């Protein structure tokens, strides 16, 4: 005679957690996004196309995505350098610098915007000397660029830092004993090992810059076609009660952001596959 044995998972609670996950993701993310798409259906295709191809919209999108990309590139390079210094060397104030990296995370973005504007205004500490060279930062696209760098830097540092800490110093010793100079060791051994983390950091900084609003609008000057970011244009449309216009721009941003993140994700998986975690 045999008795049936009930199968018990060693990790109970799948049903409950899965249910909660789906509900939560729906309520918090999917339903609002669906509403966004639905709203745009109030527009005819021609109207929609007219809104998103208008000069002002295209310029705003170009400014948002273009400057975000540039800022993420700068953050990628500078973030890597900062991580290197923080992880590899012991110097007085290292912990302080390490903590400073987190400030853009914690600071209300409006505060950051006001501070940066003060600093780069024509009479500000940095604005004044720059003005002597004829460089104007505040109320120009350069200002947007700087704000985006400011809010993006911790994403690169915090994603790459743990990976670099985990990187075995023996790897570098092995490279040296094989005759590699510093250049070869950094560019052929260390950086390639960091690629997945670098891509993640880049994607996060990029996404954060696209979505940034608070710090940018203070320093941007917000001239249509020159220094007006897409999120601001959406707010302007909303304040004019042109809700469909606003959602049309929002949908374009959403789709574009999704495509970019998807692309970076694929890149990351490709890199990850080359560096399997053991």
């Amino acid at each position, binding site marked *: 005679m045999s008795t049936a044995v009930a199968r018990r998972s060693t990790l109970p609670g799948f049903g409950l957690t899965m249910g909660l996950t789906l509900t939560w993701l729906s309520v918090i993310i999917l339903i609002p996004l669906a509403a966004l798409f639905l709203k745009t259906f109030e527009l005819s295709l021609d109207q929609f196309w007219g809104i998103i191809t208008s000069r002002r919209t295209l310029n705003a999108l170009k400014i948002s995505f273009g400057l975000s990309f540039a800022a993420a590139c700068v953050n990628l390079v500078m973030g890597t350098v900062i991580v290197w210094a923080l992880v590899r060397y012991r110097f007085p104030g290292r912990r302080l610098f390490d903590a400073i990296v987190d400030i853009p995370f914690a600071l209300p973005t409006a505060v950051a915007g006001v501070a940066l504007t003060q600093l780069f205004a024509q009479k500000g500490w940095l604005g004044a000397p720059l003005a002597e060279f004829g460089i104007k930062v505040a109320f120009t696209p350069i200002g947007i660029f700087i704000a985006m760098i400011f809010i993006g830097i911790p994403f690169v540092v915090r994603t790459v830092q743990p990976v670099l800490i985990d990187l075995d110093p023996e790897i570098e*010793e*092995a*490279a*040296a*004993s*094989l*005759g590699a100079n510093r250049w*070869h060791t950094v560019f052929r051994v260390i950086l390639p*090992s960091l690629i997945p983390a670098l891509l993640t950091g880049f994607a996060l900084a990029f996404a954060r810059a696209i979505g940034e609003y608070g710090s940018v609008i203070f320093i941007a000057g917000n001239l249509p076609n020159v220094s007006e970011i897409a999120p601001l244009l959406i707010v302007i449309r909303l304040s004019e009660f042109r809700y469909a216009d606003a959602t049309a721009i929002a949908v374009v941003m959403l789709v574009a952001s999704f495509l970019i993140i998807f692309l970076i994700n694929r890149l990351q998986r490709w890199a990850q596959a080359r*560096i399997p975690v053991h």
Partner: protein
Amino acid sequence: MAIEVKNIVKTFGSFAALDNVDLKVADGELLALLGPSGSGKTTLLRIIAGLDWPDSGEVAIDGENALSRGASERQVGFVFQHYALFRHMTVFENVAFGLRVQPRAIRKDEATIRARVKNLLDLVQLDWLANRYPSQLSGGQRQRIALARALAIEPRILLLDEPFGALDAKVRKELRQWLRSLHNEIHVTSIFVTHDQEEALEVANRVVVMDKGKIEQIGSPGEVYDNPATAFVHGFIGESIVLPVDVAGDAVRLDGRPLNIPALGAASGAAKLFVRRHDMAVGPAGTGALEGAIRHVRSFGPIQRAEVALSGSEGKTVIEIDAPRDRELQVGEIVSLQPRRYRIFAAQE
């Protein structure tokens, strides 16, 4: 290439890792640095490789001062305990790395590099893994690839830091024999560090026994096993019975009772008697230097291992001996023990 190390001193803070070490390695030798952890053996290896720098002393490779060059200029192959393979590169690219980073003036063309890597992978019998990544290999395979990578630069000397330390016992044994035969094939001067005496005695031509930053003895595996130079070596290599004795002239006493064995020139005073387990002859009571009651016997293979409580010590001193199985020992039996070979070293205070 010959290696000569002179008066090397290296301290980490107040800890003396190497205390005035001298060592000469002849061309083509396969030398083992053997010692417990903290004996300085890995530090010595890393100094020869250029991965660490001594506080003072000299290192010469093939008569050339090595300390004036960094690790990347010494042309020294180094194999790490945990392989240190580049995990983002295939096995092939790992082995090719040393050839690809050579200065442009002497770098070989792609076809030559490919042929050389192929040869090395054949040498370590892993040519079929060329396109895998290190994480897809077993520990033993990784270590063989690490060795092939180190050999790619045609190193003047090959240094291996606990090369089999991270592997399981069976793989370890295979790789030992394999390393031995590989060395016979390529004859590059090699030094390997190990804390495993069996590994050192089985693989090396010569063994350097180290303790507390000093070299205790240098000799062939047979010499260090049969004629240990110091109490440390006797205790560290092979299983030894150690008894505290007193030496007065040529007389040796244990717990105040004379043992009728000569002192072999040991200085008078407190000393330690070292006997290998299998060098203790068992006879009927009353015929040997020591006497004791058998407390426990385990028989396996060709020997029986017996625990003997020595008489006159109120049963407190218990020693383990290995006896041949020609006569089965019985628990409770009183037997005499006569050391066939032994050494007496002055006790260190």
